[in-house]
């Protein structure tokens, strides 16, 4: 269950609309924003896969110019017991 800190950037004029759009993402918590269009948020997803998908979706919001990652903790992923194959939930695509 990885957790990431991000700074999402939008044009200042689009800040309100962007915050509204972000309210629709369940795995995202907005912690703060400022007049320059910076939005401080935390992503808390079930897997890194979901995290990547979420970042992609956020990037796809029309008013968002960038999603800058600053922090990622994925320690849960390695705490799962299992072989090397399962460490990070990795498996080569050909076996998927």
């Amino acid at each position: 269950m990885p957790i990431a800190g991000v700074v999402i950037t939008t044009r200042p004029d689009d800040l309100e609309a962007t915050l509204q759009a972000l309210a629709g993402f369940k795995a995202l918590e907005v912690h703060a924003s400022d007049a320059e269009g910076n939005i401080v948020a935390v992503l808390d997803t079930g897997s890194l896969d979901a995290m990547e998908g979420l970042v992609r979706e956020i990037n796809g919001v029309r008013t968002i110019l960038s999603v800058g990652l600053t922090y990622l903790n994925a320690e849960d992923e390695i705490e799962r017991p299992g072989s090397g194959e399962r460490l990070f939930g990795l498996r080569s695509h050909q076996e998927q």
Partner: protein
Amino acid sequence: MAQTRRDFLKKTAALSAASYVGVHLPFDGTALAGTEEGITWHPGTCRLCGSGCRLELGVKKGEPVGLRGIPGARTNFGYLCMKGMLFWKCMRHPDRLTTPLYREKKTDPFRKISWDQALDIAAARFADAVRQHGNDSVAYYGSGQALTEETYLFQKIMRGGLQTNNVEGNPRLCMASAVGGYLTSFGADEPIGGYADMEKATCFFIIGSNTAEAHPVLFRRIMRRKLDNPEVKVINADPRLSQTSRIADKHLQFRPGTDLALLNGMANVIMEEKLYDQNFLSTYATFRQGKEKKEVSLDDYRKFVAGYTPEKVAGICGGNITADDIRQVARWFATATGTVSLWTMGINQRKRGVWANNLIHNLHILTGQLLKEGADSLSLTGQPNACGGVREGGGLCHILPGHRLVKKEKLRNQVEDAWGIPRGRIPPKPGYHTMAMFSAVNDGRIKAIWINCTSPAQSLPNCDHYNKGLAREDVFIVCTDIFPTRTTEYANLVLPTAFHFEKTGVYGCTERRSQLTRKAIDPPGDARPEVWIVREWAARLADRMKDPVISQCIKPFSGLDASYDLPRAIWTEYTQKVTKGRDNDLRGATYEVLARMADGVQWPALDEKYALTGGTTKKFVKGKDPLATIHSQNDLPYQFYGPAHPDRKLWVWLRPQADPEEMPDAGYPFYLSTGRIIDHWHTMSMTGRVPELLRANPYAYVEINPRDARRLGISPGDMVEVRSRRGVNLLPAKVYEGPVEGMVFVYWHDQEESRMINKVTKDAFDPGSKEPEFKICAATVRRVSGPRPLKPFLVRG
């Protein structure tokens, strides 16, 4: 994980993000102490592009568990992109190579062998080749991803030990034209300024670079600058609309291969409208023409660019460009308080890539948009250590470490003296450049080649042609890598190497900045650092060839621990003995200093005290560059001491428009171009193994302009054949208002046979830089069927 701990971690994440933008949160870090208990954070540099973002790897119980940016780093101020955030997942991947593999014949299966056996075989095969076929029958082909210590040691053994300059690397495929451009325009390689200019610039000219996807964290800086200062102008010139165009005030979508005309057109406006800086020009510049570098006058130059009127150029460029657009962007460029130009492969990977680089530099010299804060002509690097390792560390066939030309005896002698080997040991003739090297493999002139950390079987243009050579049974191939690749499929010997953070060494990024990454975790299985591999191989070579000079090459490194002391000793020799007195003087950037810096040191940095300030932000400027003061010959503030310009001036070049080697015609009516996508990198051997990145873009596709698609009856997802005179791909279509009409664009990462676009690209190369023209060739495009289910593909062991 307990809920409370999870909440704490979320607050830690929020605080991290908030600190970057100076936003205050209603809680502070003190209560969170202990949240990350058991995690140690290890500083280093991102592995996945040339931006040089600094980050820390979180390690718990010897395993990587997380990543965070380093806010104090002047490269990225703590920001990372998703690709950078996930590269650590390669570290414990089950596909990692963990033991040496060998096969006598390339058609046999590999078998596991010991390191002793592997190193004996490698030494025997290289020694035999030299004995039977001469010194130039062996070669090293390296990488802009190898650490500087690795490139330096490999080339030392090849040149000083095996007496061949057959030392090359994949930066030939991406950066060589930028090297040629800097040398011929400014007299010295590498940029004058750096990223810090972005926060001072009032105009950005981005040409031939999809910065948003290829250098996302740098793009963030540009975007932030634009958002904070809406009057800042962003010009994006590219035949393809990309994510970068999102923030552009003007996108110039020109027909592929007309870039030189466009740049001369801008120069025309600057001359006609007297937007040039007469004082700067008469003090610091001369005008040059032709192979013989003949000096001509300002008037000659004016007459030359008079042939590139905006109206004429708009006609040549086609696309959406009007004469007024050209006038407009030239005015923005010239009149801004500071203009920064940025480019990458769109400019470099051209038949006349050096000329294209010269013409960008011309605009900066003409307008004086150089040397001052907020102005620079900045070529972005694609790989994390193309600059530091290969350009500076002697990783190309014509250059020795410290920006020395092989052909100059005095410079060869300096290196020989530094190495304590007899003068005359390094041969005077440059070795094979990349395309010549693989041609020599093709026709059997090279008998043994060491390929390190790169995959030419996929990354060379017209790769099928060169892969015939790699398949020859009389060419012995060693590959050092972390994963199987298209190239290990041709190897006799595959040696597993330690990955980033599993070993210690320095990367030098785009802006002359060297940064240290120390070992934080153990490599898997029996993977070893390259510096250990080369040292042990060289020791066996010395024995076999009974050559004390080879022993001398590794003597300073004998017995040192490979995880730190060995790379440190190599770096110390390189910086203290070999860069001393050169323009990339790195003597102040010792391991001890680098370890204290959040973001490394920009050369020149002659001593530790100066290096601890961060080094030189602007080359050639007295007061900012210690060498400018040392080499000063007058009272002027700028001193161009670069070795290539004896007149100590900047050179404005008269370079005409030059078409690509291959133009569309009736048989092959489309331009084909290739490039990157945000999630993947190069031949996907790493990013393809991060499932999150692979799933986002599991295979390559071909982008087609909607008008072309309509004409050809192609719908989104249809399978489309892209064919050139050299090869063919079968790719799903993405119908998209990206490429200009008449052009298709394909991502080059995919390893699957029918989607490897370098089977289709052309291997023509720039006669100066020898860099191939990946970016343009002629192709046919044809619908084959409706959508088909496709599987992603990676080479397995």
